[in-house]
């Protein structure tokens, strides 16, 4: 919807870009994006063309029992200030003690993103005064981060029908370990600020991406892929709504062949959808600003999801000097590989990169390739399967239990089941129709025990099936029995089918509602 919404604008932008030769590294991407746009007259200025440049900084909260440097528990939505150790509150005399699990999560993530892992990395203090930063500084890795020079491949479709996908790569500059801050809640009516330190000191991986992207859709696709990778690794739950994955986007525009423009940083983006919106809005805003003779300020902006636009943030006025300094209370973080691991070292006390490497799970790209190969489904279908939480497992379970060809099964799952689930905001795991029931239904269909016309009314059918299952479950009847009992065999008349459904639902309304909600 985002891309479509500003399609006219994009066409204007990239049409211009496409015509200019020798765009250096950016040009190719601009052209690639342009493929979607088609030929449309240039913008107001006629000659000017713009190349947008997008880089991302992503903070992923590490999934760990305790915080990065203290023993406090990590938990979402706990009572305020209930998870705060003396260190988290920066009581004088307390010292940081590095959490091994957080280091392993960062190494895992670094390896999954093709980074080289630094065998020796360092911690630094970054100073600024803020109510939710009790020590007056954040411990981070400014000089030598734990992982550097990686890459992330992601795919996106270049037309609206999802049938043509391109794979792109964004370079990963570095991954650094750092502390999360607490939360400030501003109570304007009583003009006071309340501070919750539960989040203070939780481990973060900051993934810094090079500015290799050029539109909101690319940024969104890259972040979505990163999110899948983190979730696959278990290094972060990466739920954006819970703040476990937070994205800041650096956006600038410039004319081809010229140096990069002044960039703005858009913060507070808390969903992939909003990321695409925010980046596209910001690109458009900057172009319009420049075309109207204005200038771009190097500033921090926030994305207002209600208004769908970015606005300047007030709290960072003036130039900040973070006065970086080495963290003197933490020795350099030393990691080992099979070669460098000292023989007499207690393996509980060291992190072995090779050991972690050997145990990396299949990454999403590998999983997709396997799905395509094993089931003969289209690549884009494999994307959808992985993008939806639990859908791959659901699909594979159905395939296991039915004689229907996977190629056909995927259609039922992606077209009928998924749209039903989306309508009701359910994940595959919450599906009221079990993989077993769906498999049984598909078997009936495959054996022509019910008509495909009837089956085509799938969403209705599935609800019906579900209700029936609920009603007959206690008596242990099978799908076939239900179908026979309800005379659904080769049922031709849609209306009749609907009537049956309705009758069933009316009779058992409360139970239906409850189960759907549950």
């Amino acid at each position, binding site marked *: 919807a985002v891309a479509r919404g500003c399609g006219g604008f994009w066409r204007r932008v990239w049409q211009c870009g496409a015509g200019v030769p020798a765009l250096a590294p950016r040009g190719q991407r601009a052209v690639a994006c342009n493929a979607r746009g088609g030929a449309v007259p240039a913008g107001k200025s006629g000659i000017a063309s713009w190349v947008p440049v997008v880089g991302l900084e992503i903070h992923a909260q590490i999934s760990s029992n305790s915080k990065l440097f203290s023993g406090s528990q990590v938990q979402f939505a706990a009572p305020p200030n209930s998870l705060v150790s003396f260190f988290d509150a920066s*009581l*004088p*005399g307390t010292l940081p003690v590095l959490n091994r699990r957080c280091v392993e999560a960062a190494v895992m993530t670094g390896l999954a993103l093709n980074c080289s892992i630094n065998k020796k990395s360092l911690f630094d203090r970054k100073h600024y*005064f803020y109510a939710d930063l009790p020590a007056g500084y954040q411990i981070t890795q400014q000089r030598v981060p734990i992982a550097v020079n990686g890459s992330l491949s992601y795919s996106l479709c270049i037309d609206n029908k999802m049938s043509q996908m391109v794979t792109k790569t964004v370079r990963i500059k570095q991954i650094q370990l750092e502390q999360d801050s607490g939360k400030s809640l501003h109570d304007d009516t009583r003009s006071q600020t309340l501070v919750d330190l539960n989040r203070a000191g939780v481990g973060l991986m900051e993934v810094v991406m090079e500015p290799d992207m050029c539109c909101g859709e690319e940024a969104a696709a890259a972040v979505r892929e990163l999110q899948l990778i983190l979730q696959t690794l278990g290094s972060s739950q990466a739920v954006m709504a819970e703040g476990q994955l937070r994205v800041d986007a650096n956006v600038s525009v410039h004319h081809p062949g010229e140096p990069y423009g002044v960039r703005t940083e858009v913060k507070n983006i808390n969903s992939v959808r909003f990321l695409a919106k925010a980046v596209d809005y910001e690109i458009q805003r900057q172009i319009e600003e420049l075309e109207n003779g204005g200038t771009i300020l190097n500033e921090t902006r926030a994305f207002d999801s209600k208004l769908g636009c970015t606005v300047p943030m007030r709290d960072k006025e003036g130039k900040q000097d973070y006065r970086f*300094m080495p963290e003197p*209370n933490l020795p350099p973080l030393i990691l080992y590989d099979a070669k460098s691991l000292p023989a007499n070292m207690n393996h509980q006390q060291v992190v072995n990169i090779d050991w972690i490497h050997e145990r990396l799970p299949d990454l999403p790209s590998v999983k997709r390739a396997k799905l395509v190969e094993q089931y003969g489904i289209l690549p884009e279908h494999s994307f959808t399967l992985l993008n939806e939480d639990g859908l791959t497992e659901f699909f594979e379970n159905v395939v296991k239990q039915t004689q229907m060809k996977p190629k056909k099964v995927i259609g039922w799952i992606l077209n009928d089941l998924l749209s039903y689930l989306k309508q009701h905001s359910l994940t595959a795991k919450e599906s009221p129709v079990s993989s077993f029931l769906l498999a049984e239904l598909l078997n009936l269909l495959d054996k022509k025990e019910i008509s495909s016309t009837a089956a085509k009314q799938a969403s209705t059918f599935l609800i019906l099936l579900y209700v029936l299952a609920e009603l007959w479950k206690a008596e242990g009847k099978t799908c076939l029995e239900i179908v026979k009992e309800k005379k659904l065999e080769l049922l031709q008349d849609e209306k009749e089918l609907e009537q049956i459904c309705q009758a069933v639902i009316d009779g058992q309304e409360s139970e239906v509602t409850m189960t759907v909600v549950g």
Partner: protein
Amino acid sequence: AALKGGMRFQVSAALREGRVTPTELCQRCLSRIKTTKFLNAYITVAEESALKQAEESEDRYRRGQPLGVLDGIPIAVKDNFNTAGIETTCASNMLKGYISPYNATVVQKLLDQGAVLLGKTNLDEFAMGSGSTDGVFGPVRNPWSYSRQYKERSVLKSHSEDEEANWVITGGSSGGSAAAVSSFTCFAALGSDTGGSTRNPAAHCGVVGLKPTYGLISRHGLIPLVNSMDVPGILTRCVDDAAVVLGSLAGHDPKDSTTVQDNFKSFELPNLIDVSKLSIGIPKEYHAPGLSSEILSLWTKAADLFKNAGAKVMEVSLPHTRYSIVCYHVLCTAEVASNMARFDGLEYGHRSGMNKSTEIMYAATRREGFNDVVRGRILSGNYFLLKQNYENYFIKAQKVRRLIANDFVKVFGSGVDILLTPTTLSDAVPYMEFIKEDNRTRSAQDDILTQAANMAGLPAINVPTALSQRGLPVGLQFIGRSFQEKQLLTVAKWFEKQVKFPVIQLEVKKHSHGVSQHQKSASFS
């Protein structure tokens, strides 16, 4: 059995033999604290909890199950170590009234071994100073100011009976701890040592002051000055006692990642010591400008003592030591700027009433909470850390620090076992004279002989050596190899035996009147 080593806390033998009970001992110390109150050595006296601890110790002795040599021994702790339930102020308005919820690891270790914590000792605000004169509770007075030795030799000269004009400083910043040990109010005290803060007051107060190797003793719970140089210091009446306390504190602490993993084996110092196989280095750069002729001649005599005992004594060079002061200034203030950032009035400590905005509250809190010395160091530290200055100051200072440390590595690599140097340039100066110079100038001068050991993380100890012509203590410093505390203390013990430093003849009764007055003015000033 543990006592056969001789002087290890002689009082411990008395406790074991029942000649004195822990409660009696504690009460005696508490009353001594009262009669010497005019020294202003203590900020907080924890009478109630001390007596309770003594009672518990007494129970253990009665059952014949004391926890060790330290059981029942009254100790004092510098007021920059966290103590659960007892105020920890750092002699600053910022932390006045602050009661920590936890014990510093070193405090916990002492308590776990039965030591009786009498109270918290005075210091320069946040340990920033070399006189113990710049704390919010007023200056500490050197007990030797009130000794017969000082009076007999100095008061005549000054033609003045006015003690107010003549009392001398303790040195610092652990002056309260040094004065507490020196005036017999406790048997051992903890100080901290960042640039000489334990050894300097130990020298001026005539007590043993040990700065262990960086990383040997946990800093958890020590409110930091310079994290990369701070070490808990040990002040005792003799070297043997220092070895006992060291043994009870040393070792890895999971709460301090900079402590070494290796197990520390506590040791007893031998009574028969042979120094003939030793090689003693005399660093020529310690002939610093301003070194008093008295101290120079004592230093020479000390070297001769070793020579005469068959040791090899040789001049060595630590060429980068002269850059130590300026280097320290940059590194210290930078870390201070960072460490002090947490005092914003939100979570704990002083909070200003000015609360129009968070920023105004921060600024007012920090202006009201810190003295000029602390604020000055924060300002310069932040200046050195600014992006445009970082390379020129901080990075350079770090490189110089490495050069200073390498000097020591080279010297020790050339076969030298121990370095022998003066601890201070002169004996203690009268307070009235001391405050003529500002804190920065004083600190720069006074740390000159002690600082380099902190830069290099090396163990060093002050051993009281003799009295000056004015009747004030003078000490010499031994610097050892990293983690070679046993060798260092053994040499120190041998030296201690040779020099037979006199016992202080403290005249306290006369002063008990002036005391209460002084206390009042100090706590309300």
